[in-house]
């Protein structure tokens, strides 16, 4: 909206008009398009130099480029920023919304993985979670319905094409915005919550035990007083 932009101008002012347009287009596509965008479609993603500028812009707002399937790009929260915010207790999504999202992820992703019918290594799935499957928990029909509506609006879930037994849901495009570290975190926390005594959970704790000390050494700790 403004001619001047206090945050991005220092980055953009050195670019040619054309490079600036391409960087902004790629930045916008990664940030606001519901789904990851094809690298070939945008010079700002194709060209490594321009892409670096896009990445710099994203870094300024706590985001980072996320590579999807090796051919597409989207943007998600940078790991250190997500960690710093949640460490402050920042979690805008209500308990019910998060619970319903987790239920969809279990029915649409975790269970098909256990059945061995899901390929790839993402949180994408075409296996619908039915309302009946969501009904098995201690959330009232009303709460659940509103949560589903909000999750849909945010692109965290989407209606599956299969409405044969009433509405059903699959994970939404926003899950693709998770960085590899966030995807793994979600996997690990799901396993730790569902089967804390399993050997797999033990192995995850063992691995994270070492990973944590590494992270502390390299990550930038947030300063006090930002809240």
């Amino acid at each position, binding site marked *: *909206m*403004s*001619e001047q*932009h*206090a*945050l*991005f*101008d220092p980055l*953009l002012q050195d670019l040619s008009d054309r490079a*600036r*347009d391409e960087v*902004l*287009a790629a*930045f*916008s*596509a990664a940030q*606001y*398009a*519901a*789904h990851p*965008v094809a690298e070939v*479609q*945008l010079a700002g993603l194709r060209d490594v130099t321009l892409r670096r500028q896009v990445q710099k812009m994203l*870094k*300024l*707002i*706590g*985001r980072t480029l996320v590579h999807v399937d090796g051919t597409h790009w989207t943007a998600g*929260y*940078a790991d250190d*920023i*997500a960690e*710093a*915010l949640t460490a402050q*207790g*920042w*979690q*805008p*999504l*209500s308990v*019910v*919304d998060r619970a319903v999202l987790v239920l969809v992820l279990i029915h649409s992703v975790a269970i098909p993985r256990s059945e061995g019918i899901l390929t790839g290594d993402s949180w994408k799935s075409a296996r619908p979670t039915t309302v009946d499957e969501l009904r098995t928990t201690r959330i009232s029909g009303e709460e659940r319905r*509103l949560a589903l*509506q*909000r999750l*849909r*609006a*945010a*692109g965290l879930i989407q209606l599956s094409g299969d409405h044969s037994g009433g509405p059903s849901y699959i994970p*939404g*495009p*926003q899950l693709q915005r998770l960085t590899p570290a966030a995807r793994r975190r979600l996997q690990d926390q799901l396993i730790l919550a569902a089967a804390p005594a399993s050997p797999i959970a033990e192995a995850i704790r063992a691995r994270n035990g070492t990973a944590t000390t590494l992270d502390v050494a390299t990550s*930038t700790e*947030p*300063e006090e007083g*930002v809240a």
Partner: protein
Amino acid sequence: MSTPSEAVERRLYNALWWAKVQSAGPLEVEPDTPAVAGLTRAATPDGAKVWLVPTMPSGAGHTVLEELGAPPVAVEQPNETARVLAICVTCCWADRSGSAWPGTTGTLVQIRSVYAAMRGRAEQSSDLTLIIGSLRRLHATHWIRWNEKAGEVRLGPRVITWDAGDQAALRDLCRHLPDPPPAVLAEAPAAEPEPDPVLATEEAADE
């Protein structure tokens, strides 16, 4: 001249606020909150608080998506919702010589009246469902502030992202829409709740 570590700190400060706004929507903060580069400050109508709203340089933002054929996350009932937003603008933007923000308070009665008149027919029973649904969606995404109990609406902080061109087009639109009847407001001016951003979103989420 700031030291390198101060610059790093400031960059982190900005990034954290941007991430907050992206994850919760525009945030209402104390006026003494230090500025965040790129987040526009919009004082609340009573001046007690300030909204932080993300703004983009020209050439960035949603406008780019259409050209790319890469749509954003779909809105439920997009046209219905856009119409109701237009009606809210008509009802809440009294002094159109100035900018739309912060505007004045409008009422559900006004909105229903303009809605039916826009349709060119008497009000129908299903109208209210559609209108309330749209108002809730617009409230949840900070395009309007909808007080369901009082049946009153104000414009939301996101309207400050409309640039001069947008505002000119909207002025024109307001002229073409039927005029709302005068607003009859509840006695006490409703205090703006939601002091805490986290609570605010949960509140919005719980209704």
